[in-house]
């Protein structure tokens, strides 16, 4: 399996809105390569007859009734926010839209 490239890391960083320096790109490419390599070993074990899975348990249709449960209070909801204003989460300027 080909390793993860510097360009791929740059693309991911852009999608994640992360600003990475040149040396960081190299650094993360190397680290991610190791992680992906480790995960890739799974495919060596799983033959073509084993379909990829998204969930470890063979369950389907786990659903709940449409019944209201108590929500957090606005104070609780906002307690972890770095900034709040008018009982809302305050976020920095949003770029790249409109």
């Amino acid at each position, binding site marked *: 399996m080909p390793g993860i490239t510097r360009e791929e890391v740059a693309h991911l960083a852009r*999608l994640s809105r992360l600003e990475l320096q040149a040396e960081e790109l190299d650094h993360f490419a190397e680290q991610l390569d190791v992680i992906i390599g480790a995960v890739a070993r799974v495919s060596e074990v799983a033959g073509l007859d084993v379909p990829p899975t998204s*969930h470890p348990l063979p369950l389907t249709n786990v659903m709940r009734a449409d019944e209201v449960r108590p*929500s*957090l209070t606005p104070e609780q*909801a906002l307690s972890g926010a770095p900034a709040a204003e008018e009982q809302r989460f305050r976020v920095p300027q*949003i770029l*790249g839209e*409109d």
Partner: protein
Amino acid sequence: MNYDDAMASYDPVMGLEVHVELGTRTKMFCGCSTTLGAEPNSQTCPTCLGLPGSLPVVNAIGVESAIKIGLALNCEIAQWCRFARKNYFYPDMPKNFQTSQYDEPIAFNGYLDVQLEDGEIFRVQIERAHMEEDTGKSSHIGGATGRIHGASHSLLDYNRAGIPLIEIVTKPIEGAGVRAPEVAKAYVAELRELIKALGVSEARMDKGQMRCDVNLSLRPHGREKFGTRSETKNVNSLRSVERAARFEIMRHATVLDDGGTIVQETRHFHEEDGSTTAGRIKDNAEDYRYFPEPDLVPIAPALAWVEELRAALPELPRLRRARLQGEWGLSDQDMQSVLNAGAVQPILETIAAGAPADQARKWWMGELARRANESGTDLSEQPITPGQVARVCALVAEGKLNDKLARQVIEGVLAGQGEPDEVVAARGLAVVSDDSALGAAVDQAIADNPAIADKIRDGKVAAVGALVGAVMKTTRGQADAARVKDLILQKLGAA
């Protein structure tokens, strides 16, 4: 260039994406309430805020509603499907992804037949209907009129984040030609009626419960390959859907005729003048990194459940309209007026309360429609109930009111003077058919109009109308006209 010129050169192809907010009590993946208008961030929990360690669980009614919509759109229902994460970094989703469905929608390959204004049926093919969740609401601070551009920061209310959405996507709509804008509007209108009939959402476009994106491209006549499309986002009324499609047809045609090229981009629709302006350019870098949602297990609707839901589907709105038109004996045009006035439901309920169909229609399409029109309100919002209208009809049928008096009773009810019977009592409105009470008025009318009376005596019975009119005038409209006529003819020996 005018519209006809544009259509002489080009053939429009449309794709419509409609988002419907379901009317469930709780969100799609948590038990937070979905009630509109609650104070900011009062309907959130660790799950819909995307806090670590929280786990989503699917709302059963959300899945049921999705299947109902799929079935009503003649779709196949997936025997097994999953949710997927649509990853993007924008603060309207606190999780940094939206839980949606990707290559395994719960419903696919359907169609919806829509009726155009001249009665023609146009079949719109449905690509898919899938389940997802709504985003939070952002307000942008510091810029001009709440736009992102120029804003210093934004504020987020996550009450809406996680409310169940069904996204319904059409296949490319081809062959509509000149009528493309009309087809777009008719499709969204029919879809809205269908959603309402299924009872899965109120589908109020003015409240954002149903929102439409209009994708449109042009190609020269005879060419098979689609042109480059534009995606006009959030077109939120039926009229706007039609206007947006028309505006984009004109804009594309103008650009293409000048030898220009259409850029693949999102467009913003402006309600004030029906125009669109450029938004984000869609280069192919858009990359949501979809992957199956590991926190949710697959949905595998049992065949028996699906068939049960299919059997319980309501009559399709289009067929129901045709049936009612037949039952009420209306022409296409009259039925269209009833539909335009939003009078179907009030008329049905008035009939259910005992009134004959023609009487029920007469009141709702006459006095009440006029009043709704003048005040710019919905017919259903008038301060009178179908039961009250039916009672007025009954009083007329019993001969206790004539048409003129009935009108006054309706006015009284609308003015908040109580039930029809109370208005009748309070205003002393009742048809006078008692012969002794009418006798004097009849004698007076005969005495006042000797020439007419002679004509009637000579057998010209048609002249009686003038004398009946005179009696109605002196009794201020309260006389029973039929009885008055009989009395006059009797007294003049012409009966």
